[in-house]
């Protein structure tokens, strides 16, 4: 149990990268990217977690009762929302590209063509 969370984080990042490297569709690739991102959330929240402690919100229980680390939660919280807008940006680029090239296969898309 002591290392499970870290292993899961490493696993998620690893398979996300594997998915990107083998992807044949840009929308799929963007989904894999979000798996990599969720790895960092698992890592950060795991770092702040404390056994037998409540959430860092002292509404139901008074200040002073054990609570988990609020700092990592604050970092993750904003990052999730911003991450969604970045995903939107990527999807917008992919969509425009599909209009121009008619394909979304990363293995057929490259910025410059070699001269023959």
């Amino acid at each position, binding site marked *: 149990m002591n290392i499970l969370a870290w292993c899961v984080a490493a696993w998620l990042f690893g398979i996300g990268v594997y998915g990107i490297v083998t992807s044949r569709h840009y*929308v799929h690739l963007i989904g894999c990217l979000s798996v990599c991102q969720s790895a960092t959330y698992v890592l950060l929240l795991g770092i702040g*977690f404390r056994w037998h402690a409540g959430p860092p919100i002292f509404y139901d229980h008074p200040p002073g009762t054990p609570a988990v680390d609020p700092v990592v939660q604050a970092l993750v919280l904003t990052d999730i929302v911003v991450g969604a807008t970045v995903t939107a940006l990527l999807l917008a680029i992919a969509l425009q590209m599909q209009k121009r090239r008619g394909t979304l296969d990363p293995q057929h898309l490259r910025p410059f063509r070699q001269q023959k």
Partner: protein
Amino acid sequence: MSWAVGALLGLSALAGLLVVLSRDPRRQVYALCANGLVLSLLFFALQAPDVALSEIAIGTVVTPLLFLVTLAAAAMNRARR
């Protein structure tokens, strides 16, 4: 409580794998939804209700929606070509 955290960690590892292995982007949207749901449950179990709320709004609603709209628009473009 500890079994719940462990089980959810395992589930989130599986959900991530599912997202990667769903090569058809249309199916991947469902996998993404499931992944968002599992993650938000995990965050809830990790005593992070704030993060869980934002993950459930983003991960299970907004992001899959954007993916769906993108795929729909892409399908329309392809039909027009």
